[in-house]
């Protein structure tokens, strides 16, 4: 089992200041500059060097319950979810009416909007697809609630 530690570089060996944290809280933080000022006035920005932007923290509330999935279909395009998108799933959130969820039906994962009014239904956000009404025969597992989306251009 790989164990990833918080490792900091030996500054005497490598001049740039780099901190690496891998992989669950994975972030590579690159401060704007190193504070080597041999003489003269200190940089006026020095006091403002603070945190760096960490998208993991922005997207994920609980690292333990966060999972990612790749979208392969176009049944949710009216909700702004396109094929190839990476969605963030938070399993700590209990699914409620109106949530976008990942569900397992017939041994496959699907992404739909959950409706609990008039029985349990999975509603696509694309007119070309029909909603899935749960009758007693099909087994449905709500796998997790979609709480975010990542797309690169």
């Amino acid at each position: 089992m790989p164990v990833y530690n918080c490792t900091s570089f030996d500054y005497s060996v490598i001049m740039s200041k780099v901190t690496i944290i891998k992989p669950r809280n994975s972030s590579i933080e690159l401060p704007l500059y190193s504070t080597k000022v041999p003489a003269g006035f200190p940089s006026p920005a020095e006091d403002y060097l603070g945190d760096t932007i960490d998208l993991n923290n922005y997207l994920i509330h609980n690292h333990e319950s966060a999972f990612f999935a790749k979208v392969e279909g176009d049944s949710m395009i009216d909700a702004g979810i396109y094929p190839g998108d990476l969605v963030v799933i938070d399993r700590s959130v209990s699914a409620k009416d109106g949530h976008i969820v990942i569900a397992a039906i017939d041994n496959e994962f699907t992404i739909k909007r959950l409706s609990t009014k008039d029985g349990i239904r999975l509603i696509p956000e694309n007119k070309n697809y029909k909603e899935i009404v749960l009758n007693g025969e099909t087994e449905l597992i709500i796998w997790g609630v979609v709480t975010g989306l990542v797309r690169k251009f």
Partner: protein
Amino acid sequence: MIALCDVNNFYVSCERVFNPALHNRPVIVLSNNDGCAVARSNEAKRLGIKMGQPLFEIKNLVKKHAVIVLSSNYALYGDMSQRVDSIISCYSDQIENYSIDESFIRFYGFEHLDLTEHCQILRKQILQWLGLPVCVGIAPSKTLAKVANHYAKKYKGYNGVLKLDEESRIQKALHQLPVNEVWGVGRQLTQQLNMIGIFTALQLRDSDLKTMRKRFSVVLEKTIMELRGISCIDFDAEPKNKQQIICSRSFGEHITEIGLLKQAIAYHTARACVTLREQKSLARNITIVIRTSFYKDPQQKYGKSISIQLPYPTDDTSQFLQAAMLGLERIFKKGYNYKKAGIVLNDISDSRFVQTDIFTPNSNTNHQVMSIMDQINNRFGKGTLINAQQGFGKQWQMKSEIKSPAYTTSIDEVIRVFN
């Protein structure tokens, strides 16, 4: 009170989270190199597949019942294990992560809580957040917590959590438990105990302490005390440094050439040295082991090991590599099909308190090289920088032909969702 929390059929359960097709079907996960069954779903257990049974022995069973066979996926199990540990650590400040799927939890100062309820919440959280089923046994000692866990798993009515602390319930539980199921009682000891008329855990608990210590060992005495509800096995909240580092694996295919064996030995040596440096230790002794397959006829069977003592304790990969290559040349014999190779680092000491003498070479330069190498491999991924002895081919690598994706640790392998 001490609780033992473990994940039911851990490897199979991890696989099922990300692959709904595995539910309600017999599933087994194979050991490294796809040799033996190391995890079984309840359905597979019911078919009579035993723990550790080699795949070739159950080929027919697998075919007949369409058992799903998977290679082990340690990237997945390791990540899920860390998530489980992380959730458990919210329930007590004293956790001992005993193995990849088991943790002891000490509840000290939790008397105001109903522990059964507390652990039910834990169980529900792990099930919802990770999709993994766990069972929890709660008792005054580790050994009894194991017993409680056994029953929590066995009887559905407990809903996965059982507290054993009243004498009448403990008595009943131990009476029904064969002595070989007690933690720390192995096969040989069971036979010896059976010979003197001890068949159940209760009989063991109520045996005479002094006689048992004389006849067997202090270890068994401890076990008896633990069964009496007196905690005497240490609680290790801090993982201890390893006193011995072992790295070995079977090959995917048989190897006959020394060149490939050298690569494998070099690979394992480098891995062991990384672990050594991570725990800030030095070692002074390296043992090299090579062997052919167990299942071959005696004439083709060969196995040998050699142990090499270095002049000074070190954590320098290149020094161990040099010794390992020399050792391998010494024990290698032509004409055999080798199936497994490995190394062991021994005589391990703390690098902060090492005794040197006037002749000790200053190893500072190499130390810096090793440290930079570790940093680069941490940052850019394992194997970015390797010692050339490891070679660049993969001929000797393990078989893992039916491995599931690294769903949780590689962005290219996450689950797919469809229309």
